[in-house]
């Protein structure tokens, strides 16, 4: 029962499909970042095998992926082969159960064949996901205690959905296999190569975008020695909160970018105001209050950010309505702004300023909790606390005043982004050496948390 049926397998067809599968598998790629589960479009061929040579044949074809030409160690090859074989075998049996017939389908088989085939595709995806999840879980258990050991389901879902789209092509291969033989797969595989190429291009572009954005943000903050890396840390903090709240990957990304860009409007504030020691006059304070609006004006044309733009504009609003620029109250403040505001202040507190030492994460959390409800949304504060407890927080390691040798310290920073930020800040020649923080240099936490009312 478990193995079989063997009858109706055309050996020539089986050999051709197996070769085809190995070729397709050899040129496939890891489609998305984040998930190292390379689900390749070649599974279309494996599904075609289900129709043409039945479950056992399909399992053989699936196992042939062991022989694909790419750099991979033996264990991985064996796992992949077994994974494909199992998935194809299960799909084949579901296909048979629902009344699918093995062999080259004829005109009379349609559209009756479509339903079993779709069921086979679903089964294939399910078994595949289950096996990958099991693998991930095992690996995760081995590496327990890693700082970012959370497994993200959404990217995997996206990969599964698009690969199911491609697997429908398997039916096309099977349908025209009889009339065309080997030309059929050529025709079918062409769009797959193209999609693969497009995905690769897209990944490259996305990385380039990220790098450019980060660099430009850092270029802007090179003016102020003490806020180096601030934008990247706020971006990470905001992303941590957004993830903790269970937002979609896309939204998390938007909020991350908004966090990166939140202070870009400070460029419009005269440097001498930003760097002033001592109390600010009303005019100077008014100039500082303009920075969220200025920032919004700069980035509002980046249509991709849409709702996260509000996060830049309103990141200095307070829940009790005493913030700026608009004095919004409570839940009038956009969600993204409430997130960025918490991340912003948390990073301010945990980094060194010209007038005080950095606070520890615990002290900062206590302060945030004290201000929750009046200044911050308690939901965001708690989300940050949970995320920081689980993943930790990389505090900036700048203890020495400008002029000190902080190159050695930068190397010690373990967080990749912080290291990058510090490096960037170090290599970009800075003419203006800033002394003071952009916020009012009064040494109380109240001042740092933006709670100065006038």
């Amino acid at each position, binding site marked *: 029962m478990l193995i079989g049926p063997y009858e109706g397998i055309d050996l020539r067809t089986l050999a051709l499909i197996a070769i085809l599968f190995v070729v397709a598998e050899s040129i496939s790629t890891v489609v998305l970042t984040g998930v190292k589960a390379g689900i390749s479009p070649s599974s*279309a061929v494996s599904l075609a095998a289900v129709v043409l040579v039945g479950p056992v044949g399909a399992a053989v074809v699936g196992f042939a992926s062991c022989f694909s030409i790419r750099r991979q160690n033996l264990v991985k090859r064996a796992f992949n082969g077994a994974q494909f074989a199992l998935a194809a075998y299960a799909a084949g049996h579901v296909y048979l159960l629902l009344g699918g017939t093995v062999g080259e*389908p*004829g*005109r009379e088989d*349609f*559209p009756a*064949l*479509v339903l079993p085939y779709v069921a086979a595709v679903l089964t294939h995806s399910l078994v595949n996901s289950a096996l990958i999840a099991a693998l991930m879980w095992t690996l995760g258990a081995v590496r327990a205690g890693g700082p970012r050991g959370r497994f993200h389901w959404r990217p995997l879902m996206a990969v599964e959905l*698009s690969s199911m789209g*491609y697997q*429908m*092509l398997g*039916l*096309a291969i099977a*349908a*025209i296999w*009889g*009339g*065309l033989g080997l*030309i059929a797969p050529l*025709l*079918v595989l*062409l*769009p797959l190569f*193209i*999609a693969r190429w*497009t995905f690769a291009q*897209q990944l490259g*572009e996305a990385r*380039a975008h990220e*790098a*450019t*954005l980060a*660099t*430009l943000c*850092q*270029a*802007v903050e*090179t*003016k102020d020695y003490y806020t180096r890396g601030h934008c990247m840390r706020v971006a990470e903090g905001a992303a941590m909160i957004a993830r903790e709240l269970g937002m979609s990957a896309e939204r998390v990304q938007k909020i991350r970018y908004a966090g990166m860009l939140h202070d*870009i*409007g400070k*460029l*419009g504030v*005269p*440097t001498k105001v930003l760097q002033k020691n001592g109390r600010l006059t009303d005019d100077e304070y008014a100039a500082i209050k303009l920075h969220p609006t*200025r920032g919004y004006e*700069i*980035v*509002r*044309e*980046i*249509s*991709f950010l849409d709702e996260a733009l509000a996060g830049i504009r309103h990141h200095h609003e307070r829940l009790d309505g005493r913030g700026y620029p608009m004095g919004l109250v409570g839940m009038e403040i956009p969600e993204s702004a409430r997130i960025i505001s918490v991340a912003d202040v948390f990073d301010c507190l945990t980094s060194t300023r010209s007038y005080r030492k950095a606070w520890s994460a615990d002290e900062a959390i206590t302060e945030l909790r004290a201000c929750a409800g009046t200044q911050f949304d308690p939901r965001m504060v708690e989300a940050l606390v949970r995320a920081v407890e689980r993943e930790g927080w990389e505090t900036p390691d700048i203890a020495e005043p400008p002029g000190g040798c902080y190159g050695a310290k930068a190397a010690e920073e373990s967080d990749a982004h912080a290291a990058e930020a510090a490096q*960037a800040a170090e*290599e*970009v*020649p800075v*003419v*203006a050496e800033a002394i003071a923080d952009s916020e009012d240099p009064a040494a109380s936490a109240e001042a740092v948390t933006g709670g100065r009312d006038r």
Partner: protein
Amino acid sequence: MMTQRQEGPRSSGPVLSGPEGGALSHQRPRGPIWRTSRPVSAVLVAAVGGGALAALVWTAATGFVEPYVALSFCLVIAIGELARITLPGYREAAPIASAGAISYAFLLTLGAGPLHHSAWQVVAVVALGVALGELPHIAVGRGPRVEDVARRVFVAVLLAVAFRPLAEQLGLSGPSVTATLLMAALAMLAWLADALVAAVLRAERLRTRLGVAVRDELRAQFAMGAAIGSSGVLIALACTVTGLAGLLVFTAPLLVSQMAFRRHAEVRRTYLETVRALSRVTEVGGYVENGHSRRVSHLSHGIACELGLAEAELLELEYAALMHDIGQLSLREPIAGGATVLASPREQRRIAELGSAIIRETGVLDNVAEMVRRQCEPLAGDGDEGVPPLGSRIIKVANAFDDLVGENGDEERRAAVLERLRMDTDSEYDPRVVDALASVLARF
């Protein structure tokens, strides 16, 4: 048929920006329709429109053969048109509609016996589907770029006219190697013809060289064209076995391809928008005049098209032009008025190097960084590095022009500035670039 796309900035005011460095949003309003500055586009649209109308009338008069098949394909084409996407370089495409049109032109049988729809009917069905799919877009004010729609119908016309009579003569009735090869060859030819037409239109729109435009279009449309063509042939062949159900099943994979294309285009667009937006930090910081970066970018784009730069180089030039002043961020005090052309050569060079260092930091824009670094070198270059890259020379001219003219320079001032630049062409500015600038300005 006057297609003015207003994407991007809502409040750009006098700032020249928008798609293709503003080339699209800066078509002057014209008088009568027959005095267009873009005759090729007008002829194409008129010819395809007229042909489609004639086909519709003819088919309606003689009656549709196999109306259900025609209706199904018409619907798929309409849905594909509804889901059209914009590829990098502001190229509109509707992969599913195109694949549907191709497969309807190639459709031989649905299993029950040969189909006999004529080439006229194919054109009529495709035109109808495209029109149906565009209606909702037009209703919400997102009208298509008419010439791209015309090109999509044009491909269907070519294929239908070439394939339908041939299939009757050869007596093709099902999937066979001959039929497949014929279809593939025809699809490839049609793709080539389409790319050529697109190139002529692009050359006309951007006023760039035809040879360059052909290369750009072939490169830009290759992937999409191959995906559409092979899917079209595949659907036509698979439908002979599976019947109309296959039409739905086999459109799904193309939908995924389309999503990949769309995501890619989005990332590209976001990238450009980000650089455009962030190039304004120097303006907000009071380092340069309002709109300076964008005007320089727009001028550079015009000059580069005039000089025949390829699309990829145009993009890099646009980035470089937008960020050419970013080095000023590292200055303690803004230069008075922000006009770098008036600063001392040493100062200029330092700003260029600081900016270049910032851009190089990204790790992905090395060519851009190089252009920015050498933007203020004289024509012969500095030291032993030789002549600076063309992009740098273009930015140098565009930057000097904009610095000297300012935001609201009138005709007279522009002419005077151009004259001043011309006088410096033996040592400072590249004479070819200055000439190109003159012909760009003549069009404003």
